[in-house]
């Protein structure tokens, strides 16, 4: 090994290190993004107006003189997330069982030990695989329909029957993100403190609570969107902001 390095000048590739860092880095950003995303979406629990306010802030409405915002900001944000999503998927895919033999091995190992962290990894691989498809659909829709509006979202959920996709996506994202962020801490030795084993227990507890919290938030938000969508089923396509403007005009003129 020594001769190989010093005499022939052949050096081992740094690519595996970069790929590992990139996988963890994209995962970290996406995981935190998904938690923030869930909290922002859950603003609908406080009312349609709250969701609209968040949506307008995301569209940078506070910077536009008309107050309508710039949906292009959403396009750029979605493009950024989409890129991270694809890069992360490509990097994560390297770890998947690539043939039946490998798949059988991991399943046998899970059956033999019933070990939580091994099982969690498998759930992560499965949820990751599902998100290749479910996540792509959602991201593509957001890319082509960047205007965020509570009624448009509710119509999409209810009248366009997107709720099954969102339900699947919600489960996958929340499981994948929480497990992934926990695994990142283990992988790189973050938050280990003085007693690594106790810290791990704490992180496991935190992971469980975060999963339950975000799943509850997600299911409730989806339910609220279903109700809004159901009530709005006769006016599909109408924007919340247009409706509000009409009401305001009626009040002013009336």
């Amino acid at each position, binding site marked *: 090994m020594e001769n190989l390095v010093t005499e022939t000048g052949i050096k*081992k590739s*740094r690519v*595996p*290190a970069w*790929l590992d860092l990139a996988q963890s880095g994209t995962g970290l950003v996406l995981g935190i993004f998904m938690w923030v995303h869930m909290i922002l979406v859950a603003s609908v629990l406080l009312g349609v107006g709250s969701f609209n306010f968040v949506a307008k802030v995301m569209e940078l409405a506070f910077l536009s003189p008309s107050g309508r915002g710039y949906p292009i900001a959403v396009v750029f944000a979605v493009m950024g997330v989409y890129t991270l999503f694809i890069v992360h998927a490509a990097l994560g895919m390297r770890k998947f069982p690539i043939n039946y033999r490998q798949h059988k*091995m*991991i399943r046998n190992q899970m059956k033999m030990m019933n070990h939580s*962290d*091994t099982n969690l990894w498998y759930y992560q691989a499965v949820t990751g695989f599902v998100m290749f498809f479910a996540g792509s659909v959602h991201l593509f829709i957001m890319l082509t329909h960047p205007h965020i509006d509570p009624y448009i979202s509710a119509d999409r959920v209810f009248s366009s029957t997107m709720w099954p996709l969102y339900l699947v996506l919600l489960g996958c994202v929340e499981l994948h993100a929480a497990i992934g962020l926990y695994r990142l801490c283990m992988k790189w030795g973050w938050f280990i403190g003085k007693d690594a084993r106790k810290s*791990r227990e704490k992180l496991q507890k935190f992971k469980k609570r975060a999963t339950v919290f975000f799943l509850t938030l997600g299911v409730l938000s989806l339910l609220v969107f279903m109700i809004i969508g159901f009530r709005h089923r006769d006016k599909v396509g109408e924007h919340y902001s247009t409706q509000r403007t009409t009401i305001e005009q009626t009040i002013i003129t009336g």
Partner: protein
Amino acid sequence: MCGQAVKEKQETQDKQDIQERARTLTFEILRYNPQVKGETPKMKTYQVKEAPGMTIFIALNEIREYQDPSLQFDFVCRAGICGSCGMVINGAPGLACRTLTANYPDGVIKLLPLPGFELIGDLSVNTGKVFRAMSERVESWIHDKHADNVDLDKLEETMDPDTADEIYELERCVECGVCLAACATKRMRDDFLGAAGFMRLARYAVDPRDKRSDEEFYDIIGDDDGVFGCMTLLGCEDYCPKDLPHQTRIAYLRRKMAFAKRS
């Protein structure tokens, strides 16, 4: 004299009571000798009367002694030091000598050989071959180009006690192979180095007498068969019978290798 007799009688009575109250354990053991042509693996059941403080290792010896002398399993020290009696006990890889039968309330104990190793027969596997290869792969010795020019009249350099402790902690590995059998990554990918190799390398990485640079360590484990292939499933951490700090040490190597400087 009379007191002594009473005491002895009491002790005999106690022993009889314990024996009467003892559970009958059921051992389901994989029997297979790959050396015998045409033989197929099968599970065989044995019954053993439990004794106080009984370990799986003691029970296996009893089976071999009184029921089936052909049963193959390895042991040397019976105290968790030699690392020979690694096997899968009710699904959990561990050492037979460190596992009490009392841990199994229903009294049914299923024993399988450690997966991922060459099977010698029944519960005996060839861990030696794997560990020899691992030691060669990670070059498990002190590397110092100037070792030949050491002035033997000079006092050896002192070592920081904390560093010495850290090295000692990692030296406690008994090479039982439990960490490798508990690792789904290793099971899926045979070329993956596995926790035992990382622990060994971590031991040299903290040793100031080993002059290998980060780049030289990178040459050994800087790829997906090495530290970047570890998927942090933590089977090694959770099943190691010696409670070695796998998670923190592998994370340490990962950080060290991810940011290893190129010379």
